[in-house]
Each structure stands twice: as structure tokens, then as C-alpha cells.
């Protein structure tokens, strides 16, 4: 089993942290994981992306050209990465702010309106967890329970009150993906 994933969007959308939460859940499930970010000024509002690999065997390259899954959060990232999804792969995108929809027919393109859902939830911070919930529904590489266990282990105690909100966001994302 191997999942090669790119998550891409604007800095501040929680791209890197979503990747990290996913990678940590993989670690808890005993998988091999790598998390390779774009780094530098991109974090300050430009585009940001992270390559996450989960595998049941040793991972060679943390840097890839093609991906099984792309989670795309803005137009620039869609333009950049749509062609890099392997045939038969999965492309999840947030239609908010996307003026040109993905065009490929050899991959599964799924819109997840996480911006809208996070506004409905009244919590912009739920955004990336809604997308993660959708991703795990469409490709159950780790369980939402493991994600929550990971948050409990990595978040400082003072932030543990946020965990129920994160659980809610994951469930909401799964719900949207299941419709």
C-alpha cells in the first residue's frame, strides 16, 4: 500500500498542518511516512504545498513528480498540479475561487466546498479538517479516529478543547464527500 499525495493552496489555508496531521496519523498506524513542504516566503501568503507519502514499505524519494491524490485549494495549484495526477487518481478541490474547473476525464475529480462548510460551521479554522475528512472518506488510508488520537498526542494540553470541533469538521467533510 502506498499513497502519494500533494496538498496545495495558499499559505495560511492550513496546507502544511493538514499534511502533518495526515502524516502523523500514518505514523500511528505503523506506516512509513514522509512530509516534504515547499518552504520559505510562500508561508507568508503565497502558494504553499506539501508532499505527503504514506506507505507500508520504506519510502525512497520524498520528492515526486506524479501523485495518486491531489488536494487543491486554489486556481494556481490546480493549474500546476492537475496534470501531475496519475491516471485513475483522485483530485479533490475546493470550488470556491476556482474559475476553471479540472478538465481531466481519466481521474476522479471531486469538488468539496470546504470554504462554504467552514463558514456554515462558523469556524474558518475547521477548513483544512473538513478537507481531510473528505479525503479520508474518499480514500480511507487512515481512520478519522487515528487522526483524533494524533491530535490528542501532538496538541498542547491548552488546545485540547479544540479537538471536538476538529472531529466535527472531519465528520462534516466525510458527509459532503459521501453525498
Amino acid at each position: 500500500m502506498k499513497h502519494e499525495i500533494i496538498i496545495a493552496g495558499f499559505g495560511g489555508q492550513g496546507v502544511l498542518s493538514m499534511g502533518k496531521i495526515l502524516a502523523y496519523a500514518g505514523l500511528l498506524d505503523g506506516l512509513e511516512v514522509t512530509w516534504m513542504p515547499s518552504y520559505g516566503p510562500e508561508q507568508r501568503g503565497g502558494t504553499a504545498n506539501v508532499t505527503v507519502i504514506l506507505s507500508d514499505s520504506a519510502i525512497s524519494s520524498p520528492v515526486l513528480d506524479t501523485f495518486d491524490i491531489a488536494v487543491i485549494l486554489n486556481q494556481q495549484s490546480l493549474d500546476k498540479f492537475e496534470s501531475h495526477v496519475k491516471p485513475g487518481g483522485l483530485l479533490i478541490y475546493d470550488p470556491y475561487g476556482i474559475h476553471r474547473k479540472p478538465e481531466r476525464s481519466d481521474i476522479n475529480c471531486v469538488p468539496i466546498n470546504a470554504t462554504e462548510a467552514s463558514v456554515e460551521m462558523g469556524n474558518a479554522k475547521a477548513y483544512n479538517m473538513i478537507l481531510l475528512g473528505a479525503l479520508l472518506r474518499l480514500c480511507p488510508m487512515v481512520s478519522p479516529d487515528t487522526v483524533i488520537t494524533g491530535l490528542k498526542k501532538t496538541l498542547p494540553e491548552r488546545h485540547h478543547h479544540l479537538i471536538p470541533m476538529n472531529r466535527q469538521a472531519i465528520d462534516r467533510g466525510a458527509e459532503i464527500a459521501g453525498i
Partner: protein
Amino acid sequence: MEEDVKLMKGNEALAHAAVRYGADGYFGYPITPQSEVLETLEELMPWETTGMTVLQAESEVAAINMVYGGASCGRAVMTSSSSPGVSLKMEGISYIAAGELPALIVNVMRGGPGLGTIQPSQADYFQATKGGGHGDYHLIVLAPNSVQEMADFVGLGFDLAFKYRTPAMILADGVVGQMMEKVVLPPVRPRRTQDEIIEQCPWAVTGKRGRAHRNVSTTLELQPNAMEKNNIRLRQTYDLIEANETRSEEFMTEDAEYLIVAFGCTSRICRKAIEDARAQGIKVGLLRPITLWPFPKEAVCRLSKQVKGILVAELNNGQMIEDVRLSLSVGSSVPVCHFGRTGGIVPNPQEVIDSLLSNFPQSK
């Protein structure tokens, strides 16, 4: 699952490993892509636990000279930086080598020359392996290719530095520094006491403390005869290191008809390229130098007799390729080609395969 498995960036793992090794001091200055080393150490506050000193210096120049001072005292001290900052440290590194002092220097390389880019690079190979600073000296150069090795090479680097009384360098890159992987942190060791240092490092500047003679850490020797003796002694140390400490690793070389030589993050990319190429029936293997100095000449020489072509892949315009060529037997006709990306571009595995096929079309 073992409790001790962590998910960390290479830079963070290196910082944790330094505390756990029992390092006495870290002196650094912020520069991308390695600032997490200093940030992690400040967050860990090891001065409250192990007593380790952590100090943000006013410059890379000051930081390396703090390392020189600490090393003169027999302390296990280190610094980290990235390419432009490491250039600034070169004078101090030359002094540490000349003073026959143990120290650990970390370079998380970014693209140059000049201010360059903050993205990953391997363009400081020459600087690290051919001296870098002035005078006739070498560093032991370790090239990690995983977060685990970022942690493990801290201890290895310090151990080798103290064994041979010479500075060691971890030559990492922006990929290895910035990526997260699983890591098992090395065991916790206590810092050495002053008495242990005095016993193990009789040369250390500690204050005389009743010693009959004074210890002086100096690199100045105006008498040519005496200075040449110093140079000869250094050469003897380097000979010993070359004989005993050369390290490399091979992947799928047993039946290889083509060889890729790559270090650091590029070796990971090449490993994936080899897996993919093998699936297409191309018999290619990987030699990964772990020590860049001393360079694994014998391994290159041995494998060169088995293969029809060698591709050296590195994130520069052709640096390690010179050492690969120098490692071949006299009269060897095996072609040695180069694949490089620069400017902070990290190639993907397919580019490596494409280069292999274009350089050696018969490999297909």
C-alpha cells in the same frame, strides 16, 4: 508501536539529538532553511535540564568563533547554518582544524552562489570536501539522506571529531532539513563532567587547576620547521581517517550494468528512479557516499569495473563527479556522465531516468 517513534523535520531531529548526545554548547545564527535547529533548541531549554548552553550569536562569524572557544575547552560544541552562512564560518573552521580541535558544523545547503535561493542544493560539495577555508586541512563530511540520519549523525560526528581531534561537518540539504519523517531519537547520554574532560582531553584549556604546565590553544606557528611538523601531523590524521572512516551504501548493485552515484536527498530520488527503471528492465544500481570526505574511492573503483556507464547525480553543475572520476583505475574507459539541477530545483525521479536513458541509450 514503539513510543519513541517521532514525526519530525530533519532540523528538529538534529536539535533533539544534540541535547540527547550530551552536547555542551550550540552557537548559531538564523538562516533559512535551517533556523529550526536554533528554534528547537531554544524551545527545549536544555540549559534547564542537561546544562547545555544555547546562544544566538550576532553573526555566523561570531558563532563559529564561539565554537572555537568551546572546543578549546574540550567541550562538545556545534554550530549550524546554511550555505552563505557557512562561507562566513570558513575562517573559523580553518582555525578549528589547525588547532586540532573537535567540533561539529552543520550545513543545510541552499542554492548559490551569492545570496542565491533558499531552496535545496548540493552546491557546497567542493567547499565542504576540498577545504573551504584557507590552509591544508580536511573536514570529516557526513551526508545524511533521512531525518533519522540527521539525528544519528550528530553523535557520529561528535564521536569522530573527538576520536581524531578534527572538526566534522554534517552536509545536509534543504530537503533533508525541512522534510518530516519517522525518527527514533538516539539514547540520552549525560554531558561529560569537568573531571572527565580533563582526563579525556589533557590538552583542554580549563584553567590550570593545579596543572604544572599551562595549556594554550593556538594556531600560530611562525617557525617554518615547526609549522611543517604541524602540517605533517594533520596529514597523518587524515590518512588514518581515510583508512578507517570511509562509509558508503549500495542499492541494487549486485547485477547492475549501470551505476548512479548520488548523496544526500538526491540519493533518495535516485533510489526511487532505480526502482522505476528496474521495473522497465534497466539494470541500474546506486552507490551512495555517506562520507563525502573521505570519499569512497574503492567502492567507486570496484563498481566501475562491473558497469557500462556511471551517472553522477547531484544538485550542482558537477562537483562530486570529479571525485568519481579520480576514483577510477588508470586507463578505465567507463563513461562518467553528470545529471544536475541547480538554483534550488529538486528533480523528480523521472528526470533521473530520462538522463540515464539519454546518456546511455543502450541501457534500455
